[in-house]
């Protein structure tokens, strides 16, 4: 009968809700510090040692601000969506083999379930912008959906290439059975997945929905106080989840000598986050038409090429 208690501890504390929440704050700190260093700045410095508590201070401050609800928004959805948004990446992260074995029992096809959750997240972003009945939010929401149209397909195809090569749709199986990590076997797929992940997380160079030239704030414009806190939290949790998925699929999960699997998993996730931040630092923001034409003209043919190569690789191995 100790089993439900262990499951409860796993879901709530480690590697569940509280662990993912803390990891989200730590990754935001890493992101901001690396971003600042690349720009010859220092980044957050005075909040806690070396600015470590800055994301926590942001979160608490937002929770205590007044919650303004504009008069003409759809009140039910406006209040509901910030609650749903963080749940999706957390639920998806429960299928990642963080400690060698995921919290929820893995099954063939949990890769597809995770992809579905990411799709629903983009739809939530669209609804959040649409429901705000602000002309800037509507533009941001429409651009979020347009960007999603461009990037889901190369992301799925690059994941499918790995799934074909390892003959399984279960993330835990793919993570455990990588004698050579897929970043070396399918580097093209890794690059395409990294670019598509950058677009999924709405980070520069693909952050048109969120920070539309910083004159307005895109789909987030009308959310203030606790609702904004939860959307920012969902952004951080998506970063954690994206890094975790990349690690499981392409970098071999928690495999590595001597140290326990969770430590290796964290090291690889930090590596992916730093890679994503470097992409964020180096590039400028792309226009929405450039994003779409780039995705359909370059990424999808390359992804299909990778799929064909993966099929040949699988045939060769057999």
């Amino acid at each position, binding site marked *: 009968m100790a089993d439900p208690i262990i499951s409860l501890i796993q879901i709530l504390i480690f590697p569940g809700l509280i662990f993912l929440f803390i990891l989200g704050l730590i990754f935001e700190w890493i992101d*901001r510090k690396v971003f*600042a260093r690349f*720009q*010859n*700045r*220092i*980044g*957050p*410095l*005075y*909040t806690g040692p070396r*600015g470590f*508590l*800055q994301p*926590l*201070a*942001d*979160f*608490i*401050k937002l929770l*205590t*601000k*007044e*919650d*303004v609800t504009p008069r003409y928004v759809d009140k039910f959805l406006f209040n509901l969506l910030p609650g749903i948004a963080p749940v999706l990446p957390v639920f998806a992260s429960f299928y990642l083999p963080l400690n060698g074995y995921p919290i929820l029992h893995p099954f063939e096809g949990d890769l597809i379930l995770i992809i579905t959750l990411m799709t629903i997240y983009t739809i939530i972003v669209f609804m959040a912008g649409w429901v705000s009945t602000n002309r800037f939010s509507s533009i941001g929401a429409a651009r979020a959906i347009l960007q999603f149209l461009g990037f889901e397909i190369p992301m799925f195809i690059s994941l499918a290439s790995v799934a074909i090569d390892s003959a399984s749709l279960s993330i835990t199986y793919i993570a455990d059975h990588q004698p050579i990590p897929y970043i070396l076997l399918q580097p093209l797929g890794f690059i395409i997945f990294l670019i598509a992940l950058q677009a999924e997380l709405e980070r520069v160079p693909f952050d048109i929905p969120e*920070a*539309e030239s*910083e*004159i*307005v*704030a895109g789909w*987030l*414009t*009308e*959310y*203030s*106080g606790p609702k*904004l806190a939860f959307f920012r939290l969902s952004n951080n949790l998506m970063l954690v989840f994206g890094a975790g998925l990349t690690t499981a699929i392409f970098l071999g999960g928690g495999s590595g000598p001597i140290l326990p699997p969770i430590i290796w998993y964290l090291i690889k996730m930090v590596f992916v986050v730093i890679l994503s931040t470097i992409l964020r630092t180096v590039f400028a923001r792309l226009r929405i038409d450039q994003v779409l034409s780039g995705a359909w003209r370059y990424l999808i043919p390359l992804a299909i090429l990778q799929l064909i190569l993966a099929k040949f690789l699988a045939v060769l191995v057999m």
Partner: protein
Amino acid sequence: MVSIIGWSRIRSPWILYMCTGACNACDIEVLAALTPRFDVERFGILLKGSPRHADVLVVTGAVTRQVAPRLKRIYEQMPNPKFVIAAGTCATSGGVYWGCYNVLGGIDKVIPVDVYIPGCPVHPQAVIQGVAKLLAKLQEAK
């Protein structure tokens, strides 16, 4: 518990920047305060695009009659607790444009102001000092 809330408010002041009709010199200087040379992100300051996200409104420029209702509207769109910094002599009292027929002269004729930063244009270090004084004021009020 209350001190944690106060701590988080002092450590994370997000600013919204607005120009109410000026010669734009103060705008350039406030922008310079955000660049790597002066780097206000050390204090946790982020430049936000929407009034709904910001805590501190940094205003430059003498308030022209056309922009005055818009300034009031932006101030009212910000959620509580909110603070206002008047950057530049024009924002403080009208500056060179004091007495003009279309200028109200100083933003405290429209919205309540917490910190005044003189200068024509403001030095970015003065902007940082002004923000630090605002945070010190909050610290005492805690």
